[in-house]
């Protein structure tokens, strides 16, 4: 809310500045589908994911004045979602809810049996990753953020992004291939 103080003299009104609220809601709304996709992959559950998106949207509206006009709104929203997510993980009150609605069942894609198993495997394997590794593999692999954008969204140096990404992908590969994890990766530079 913008506040102004005036004399009760209407002549003083000329000095007033009217800040028009940009159509922030509409701009943010464009990104909801992608935020939902990322949240779904991150949490693995529809209701929890939409809770996360809702909290993210509320926070984005609150903080919209901090967004630098012209910068990438989507990357900024991912930053907010990351912060909200981390806060939720920290709060012990955070519980996971599972919901299996008819809608969710319908949303399941028809797929060949092997595809289905493979896809489930990847989803299952994702759940076995530490949160920080799951975040990076999704931001880069699913959301196709650049390494720089991912580093910004997660608030870590790019070197950390690369080492987490490397560990996450190798871990996923091993889980899916039923291999014990290989510790000896090439040194990340």
């Amino acid at each position, binding site marked *: *809310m*913008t*506040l*102004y*103080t*005036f*004399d*009760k003299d*209407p002549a003083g*009104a000329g000095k*007033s500045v*009217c*800040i028009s*609220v940009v159509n922030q*809601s*509409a701009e*943010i*709304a464009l990104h*909801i*589908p*992608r935020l*939902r*996709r*990322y949240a*779904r*992959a991150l949490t693995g559950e529809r209701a929890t994911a*939409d809770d996360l998106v*809702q909290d993210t*949207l*509320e926070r984005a*509206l*609150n903080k919209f004045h901090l967004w630098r006009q012209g910068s990438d709104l989507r990357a900024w929203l991912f930053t907010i979602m990351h912060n909200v997510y981390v806060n939720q993980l920290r709060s012990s009150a955070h519980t996971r809810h599972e919901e299996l609605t008819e809608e969710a069942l319908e*949303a399941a*894609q028809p797929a060949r049996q092997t*595809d289905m198993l*493979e*896809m489930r495997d*990847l*989803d299952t394997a994702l759940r076995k990753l530490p949160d920080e590794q799951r975040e990076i*593999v*999704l931001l*880069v*692999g*699913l959301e*196709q953020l*650049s*390494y720089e954008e991912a580093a910004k969204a997660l608030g870590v140096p790019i070197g950390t992004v*690369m080492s987490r990404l*490397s560990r996450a*992908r*190798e871990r*996923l*590969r091993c889980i*899916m*291939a039923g291999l014990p994890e290989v510790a000896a*990766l*090439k*040194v*990340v*530079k």
Partner: protein
Amino acid sequence: MSRLPVTETDLHAYVDGALPEAHRAEVAAYLAARPQEAGRVQAYRQQNEELRRLFDPVLDEPVPERLQAVLTPRPRFSPLRYAAAVAWMALGGAIGWQVSDMQQTAPANSAAFARQAAIAHVVYSPEVRHPVEVGADQEAHLVSWLSKRLGTDVRAPQLNSVGYGLVGGRLLPGDSGPVAQFMYQDGRGQRLTLYVRTNTESNRETAFRFAEEKDVGVFYWVDGKLGYALSGEVAKDELLRVATAVYKRLNP
């Protein structure tokens, strides 16, 4: 051709299509000679593809109502029977985040007052059938009733000279007791509301203050025993013009 060592970072950038053309060829050549590394890179590529296959369908799902609701705080076009309840919650939330801003420039008490006035405006001004409890045709009764409930003389200023006619008024609950709301309307159906409460500030008189949330502007001030807030979805200059008229009418 000089062969730079291929790093783990290069392999990931290769997977993610983030390598410059020249370097990409180098990595491809490197992998061609190392089937084990190539297998690993291939597995990473498949992870990316499968992630998209797995989660892209979410993009096509309809956005749940509750998420849209976060971004559409003012349900002007929702069914009237729900309008009041929804507007209270939605606008309350929307304005809530800005109270901290307001507190920096105005006493918390009066900032909350402006907020309440804005909410009451949004709740009642879209009403078609029941915008007021007591219509302007019973103005004398309206004024004496509200004066009695507020415990002090309340007047509904005549604003015909600035283009707004009285529609009527209603009694509302405020933080510290009853509050009166008068509704005005111009020839095009544009509505303004004047929210009046007994003054709880120490000031006996304040300047006009202006608060704005989305399209709702609020001029509010204290004058003697009463605090006033004029709200409307009109240009600020227009609202100021009317607020000035209200003030002059009440202080002839």
